[in-house]
């Protein structure tokens, strides 16, 4: 049995003596009747043994040689410098920076994170992070809500898993959810939007690029939404923002998103990073922690948690959200990623994703019986409709160490390509598809 307690038997008896007690059990005097008889948990183990057991457990998960699956979690290259800096114990083992004098490092990192997210999204302000991309969009929609309107329009291009989260979050608030379908190009249908955009709608939300990889006409949608007087929220892939129009150019009030592509491992779905940015108008309605710049009494540049009147520890039930712990260490990781990749590197990742995805799509569609489902322009994911059964494709890929795309139906797969996929492995994938198709 191993423990992390430094106390010797002598320490314990000395300390108990100080308290005029003779046993640890006496610390629970009066609580005997509440105590459990037995807790069905095995005895402790040595660190060495636990290490080995977890090693074995990790081997029960399959590691693929190449990954063509995205659908909300993306396999990107993580620079060694990012991992190295993120693992510094001062960052890792600190609490929320409540004491600014000894937390300037963490506070400045969050300030830089907010700044990078604001620049990427084209928004005025950003918060210190929320739980993940889906909860970030839920927070954005709730932030845009108005007393006299109760309807939100969601594009069908939003990840269905995110839509499920939105339903969970919005259900207690008497908010009616309606959907805007996609057109044949795979983009959110402007006609359908026009028809549904009535005076009861307080917000419209889309995903950019959408779940099927298609790049939305976000600026045109935003313009329409603005004219109608409702709010506009975009859930964006942060990598795509290195190239695509930002929130401001698309008339967005809020840009939310999943920050996992910014240096976080796939890690079976978490921890990931929700980011949320908005125009100045919503600054005091943003949820969660926000860091601001100020001065100390000697006029020295300083950072503090600020605008706390929005938050639960001050406002209690009137707070804009109950969020307390967020995903700070993931925000740190994203900050490190964007600093190391830099302006050029971010653009390079995005453009490699696009170029490689288009190469693969072109090569796949050369094969007889495989075609693109949507005509619209795509980013790094695309839907292939095939005569060959999807299950057969996935199986053939697996036999060759390839993690195939996401199964949408019996004849449709959502493929994802990132900078991690080189030409050789894409050609290999195409070869496999040719053979299954036969």
């Amino acid at each position, binding site marked *: *049995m*191993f*423990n992390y*307690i430094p*106390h010797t038997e002598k320490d314990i008896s000395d300390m108990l003596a*100080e308290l005029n007690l003779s046993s640890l059990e006496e610390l*629970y005097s009066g*609580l005997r009747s*509440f105590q459990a008889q037995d807790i069905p*948990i095995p005895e402790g*183990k040595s*660190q060495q043994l636990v*290490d080995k057991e*977890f090693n074995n*457990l*990790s081997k*029960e*998960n*399959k590691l*693929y040689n190449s990954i063509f699956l995205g659908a909300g979690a993306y*396999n990107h290259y993580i620079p060694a*410098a990012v991992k190295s800096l993120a693992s510094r114990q*001062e*960052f890792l083992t*600190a*609490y*929320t920076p409540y*004491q600014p*004098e000894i937390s*300037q*490092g963490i506070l400045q990192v969050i*300030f830089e994170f907010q*700044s990078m997210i604001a620049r990427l999204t084209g928004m005025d302000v950003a918060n*210190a992070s929320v739980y993940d991309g889906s909860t970030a969009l839920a927070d954005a929609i709730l932030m845009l809500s108005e007393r006299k309107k109760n309807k939100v329009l969601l594009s069908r291009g939003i990840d269905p898993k995110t839509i*499920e989260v939105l339903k969970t979050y919005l*259900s*207690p608030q*008497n908010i009616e959810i309606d959907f805007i379908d996609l057109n044949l190009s795979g983009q959110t249908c402007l006609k359908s939007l026009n028809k549904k955009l009535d005076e009861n709608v307080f917000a419209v939300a889309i995903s950019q690029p959408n779940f099927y990889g298609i790049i939305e006409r976000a600026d045109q949608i935003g313009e329409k939404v603005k004219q109608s007087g409702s709010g506009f929220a975009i859930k964006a892939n942060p990598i795509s923002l290195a*190239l695509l129009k930002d929130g401001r150019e698309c008339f967005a009030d809020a840009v939310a998103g*999943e920050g996992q592509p910014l240096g976080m491992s796939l*890690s079976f*779905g*978490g*921890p*990931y990073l929700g980011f949320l940015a908005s125009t100045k108008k919503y600054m005091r309605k943003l949820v969660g922690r926000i*860091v*601001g710049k*100020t001065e100390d009494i000697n006029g020295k*540049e300083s950072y503090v948690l600020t605008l706390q009147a929005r938050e639960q*520890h001050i406002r209690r039930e*009137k*707070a804009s959200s109950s969020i307390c*712990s*967020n995903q700070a*260490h993931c925000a740190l990781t994203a900050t490190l990623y964007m600093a190391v*990749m830099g302006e050029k*590197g*971010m653009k390079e*990742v995005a453009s490699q994703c696009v170029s490689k995805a288009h190469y693969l799509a072109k090569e796949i569609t050369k094969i007889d019986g495989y075609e693109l489902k949507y005509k619209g*322009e795509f980013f790094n994911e695309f839907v292939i409709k095939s005569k060959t059964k999807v299950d057969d494709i996935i199986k053939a890929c697996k036999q060759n160490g390839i993690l195939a795309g996401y199964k949408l139906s019996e004849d449709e797969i959502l493929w994802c390509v990132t900078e991690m996929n080189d030409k050789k492995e894409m050609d290999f994938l195409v070869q496999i598809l040719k053979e299954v198709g036969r």
Partner: protein
Amino acid sequence: MTIFEKSVEGRTACPLSHCDVKEYKISSSFLRENAPKLPQVDELTAIRHYTELSKKAFGVDDGFYPLGSCTMKYNPKLNEKVAQLEGFMNIHPLQDEVQGAMKLMNILEKRLCAITGMDAFTLQPAAGAHGEFTAMLMIRAYHTSRNDLQRDKVIVPDSAHGTNPASANMAGFEIVNIPSTPDGCVDMEKLKEAVGEDTAALMLTNPNTLGIFDKNIAEIADIVHQAGGLLYYDGANLNPIMGIIRPGDTGFDLVHLNLHKTFSTPHGGGGPGSGPVGCKKFLEDFLPAPRIRETEDGFEFFKSENSIGRMMTFYGNFAVLIKALCYIETLGREGLRKSAKISVLNANYLRKKIEFLPSYTKGLCMHEFVVSLEELKDKTGVAAMDFAKGMIDYGMHPPTMYFPLIVKEALMFEPTETESKETLDRAAWAIKELYELALRSPEDFHNMPLSTPITRPDEVKAARTPELIAEE
């Protein structure tokens, strides 16, 4: 100086290979006009910048961290090591053949059931408050399923964490605040007055935020249950009773735990945490989806019929779950119980050592205690905030300040079990020094702390003229 100010046009540390296929250009109508102004630095500049910032942070690895209600115990390195295993880190949440990951989650669920006396768990919530929100949605779904639709109120004692009323509000409930007794326990008369046909639940932290175990818990449970409400356990303070007293045995119907407190996972400067929610059998069907179950062919995900739905895109903060299970497996039954007991011993020992500060926690405390500096402030002008800042100069993190709200000039100490007697002795000595200084020379506190990169920042200015992002 921010990283932006260290940027030089043209620099990059981008480590990618060259693109080996033909460049594809997206139609210009989709493209942004200007590239986002992100940093342009070389790798060493980035390394030095953030290394310097890390030195301006204070973690458990840096020193004593008696931050009450936050359980800042040591974060074992083995946890970090196993969470970094390739077979955990590089698996896609939507891929097949992840039996190891699912088994790990299933074992953790079982362990948490055993520790809390609950029948089922979800590991999905990302933090304590997210767990509270999840549980409140479950409570709502439960009453709705019984067509008990008038239950729209959640009772919260005034000693509760702010997240409690905020989470209940997010789930659409009205909040009924009830006053606590001076030791932070539930005022039984007020509770009896508050419950009724509109009661959905009572949210309770036990031991409470003054570090006292509320011995009326059985009666509290009876009152709430007889009124038709549910009893919810805020797990922020589970540490002192971990493996010894189970919320499920004392009448609670649902709990949330904070794996980043009780189960030793690092707090990361604010997160990620993990806030699993457990419940009794009769509420299991309302747990969020997806859940994990064991079948003849191994583990699989499923959604129960009356599930409240999804709380996150995937399955929760998986890497945090690995660390928590690693801790539980290492300590085992007796290790957990011993940790709980030593956390109580440490708290009582420190309290005894600094008993010159009036304690609001009467009798023996559990894992934490609250002192009030009201008297000291009246006498010397030295407030809880000043005192806390003074502690920084002695190389320790201050305790939680001004919480719970029911105590004036409150300082809340939670030493945790991983601190040695010498550390506590030294802390007690430092606090004594500060106390004597306050009596002798209170004006010295105005400039504290003196040993830090900055002195006290102007928070009013920060809020009045918010500067939330770096200028371009």
